[in-house]
């Protein structure tokens, strides 16, 4: 299995606040890896540490076996795309302009976009089913449409690895499924490796092939959905009673909450 990203016992966070306390894991080619955990367990911070937004204070991150600190931000962004949790846009860019920004990592300053750049953008719009939105202003779109446009921009970067931070937050169930199906399709047909933070445990169970359960900046358990989503693991971490059953349709773990 080809190794894309390797995280070796990293520590880090913000000034006076070490959020991540010794985490190791690997992302292999074609993975659909999910990160779950309660609020403030360090999920978003972990994503920042592995995407060159923050530098780890201890430990190493390797991108294709090279130390991440030696990979330039530009080269990294040609290989790894990021879809943030919530993107507020203050200026009225059109969908086309937003997605075209995904080509920035591949363009030199002052270099005009070529035919190839345009066709990559068109293809990204096509894959995310947003081609008909191309002339609309981003700010006028619904949350679900925005999320798809941002995924299109990430695809325009032509990444090997797609990182997402709670892509289904603020979406209703129909749009949650729509977005997750889209990511799954990209993972299976386009060979895109996916690393995503998810809040909803049942979505994580249904879509991810591997899971990492995070708590207080440490990994509690990582492995298949069957190994991670157990009654014991979830109750210790979330400190709330849950019932784990087998989903009759998929055979995967199904989590029922009660009080």
């Amino acid at each position: 299995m080809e190794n894309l990203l390797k995280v070796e016992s990293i520590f880090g966070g913000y000034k006076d606040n070490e959020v991540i306390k010794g985490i190791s894991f690997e992302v292999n080619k074609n993975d659909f890896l999910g990160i779950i955990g309660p609020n403030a367990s360090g999920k978003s911070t972990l994503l920042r540490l592995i995407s060159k937004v923050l530098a780890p204070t201890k430990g190493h991150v390797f991108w294709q076996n090279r130390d991440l600190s030696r990979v330039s931000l530009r080269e990294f962004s040609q290989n790894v795309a990021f879809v943030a949790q919530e993107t507020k846009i203050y200026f009225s860019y059109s969908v086309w302009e937003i997605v075209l920004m995904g080509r920035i990592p591949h363009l030199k300053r002052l270099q005009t976009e070529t035919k190839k750049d345009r066709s990559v953008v068109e293809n990204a719009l096509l894959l995310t089913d947003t081609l008909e939105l191309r002339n609309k202003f981003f700010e006028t779109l619904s949350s679900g449409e925005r999320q798809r446009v941002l995924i299109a921009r990430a695809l325009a970067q032509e990444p090997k690895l797609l990182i997402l931070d709670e892509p289904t937050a603020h979406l209703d169930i129909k749009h949650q499924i729509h977005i997750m199906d889209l990511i799954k399709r990209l993972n299976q047909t386009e060979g895109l490796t996916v690393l995503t933070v998810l809040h909803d445990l049942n979505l994580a169970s249904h879509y991810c092939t591997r899971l990492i359960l995070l708590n207080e900046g440490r990994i509690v358990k990582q492995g298949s959905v069957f190994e991670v989503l157990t009654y014991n693991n979830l109750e210790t971490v979330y400190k709330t009673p849950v019932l784990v059953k087998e989903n009759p349709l998929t055979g995967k773990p199904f989590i029922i909450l009660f009080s």
Partner: protein
Amino acid sequence: MKDSNFNKKIFLLVLLFTLSIFLSLNYGSVKLNLSELFLRENRIILYLRTMRILLGIISGAGLATSGVVLQAILKNPLAEPYLLGTSSGASLGAILGMVLGGTGLTLPLIAFLGAIFSIILVYQIAKENGHLPVYSLILAGVIVSIVLSGIIIFIVSIYADKVIHEAFWWLWGSLSNYNLKLIVLSSFIVIPSIFIIFVFYRDLDAISIGEEEATHLGIEVEKVKKILFILVSLITSSIVCISGIIGFVGLIIPHIIRFSFGPNHKRLIPLSAVSGAVFLVFSDMLARTLIPPLEIPIGVITAFLGTPVFIFLLKKRQKVT
């Protein structure tokens, strides 16, 4: 997409640019039209009017471009070139210079140093482990401006008889600066800076969406921000010491261009620069011809001209969305 409209708008802009230069040459506090202007005995008037046009072009283009950059980086619609404290720093420098008996070239030079001093002060207050957080920068700019303005008012009130006339010139701005050397010197700073800013148009697009987003697109945000802040500081400092504080151009021109051409910086930067130039040359023509021989402070004209246009575009846009 809307290209036929775009070409019409560009044509209109070029037309306005030519028209503003023509009108500025044709009208002035002295009644002399174009044909008389090129007569030998009127060469001084031609020289003076040309100086004002040059100054208007440099100041207008520089202030509008600076406004574009600061609004994009600070993601704040109220951001304008003087936010970084340059205006109060330069005025304080100039007024101190007057009190100490400085004249001629020394005043603009002291004003320039004052502007640079205030910017350094703002950066030092805003800086946080090598980063320049946007909110700290806005707050630091406001605080420094308030403190320096307080000192200015204090000095003016003590030395009123000595400085009030000239202080007025600095605080309201004017294009009546006929020192060719100074104008050339500042255009050597302003014009290349505008071109360098243009090189970063894609970076500005990305940063205007969000700093973390821009990082994910491979842009070294802190580095780019520093370069752009230095360029904007140089531009505004140079302009404020040749034409005083001309309000409104840097705030309103970027908005007007964004309303009519969109936020894309590849268009926004050059179009704002040209429109800023048109706007100031035109405002100055009105400033010196409305009540001759009195010259109305150009800041008054820019405010009265800019506001209606701005409100019109805002209302039109509210209808669209």
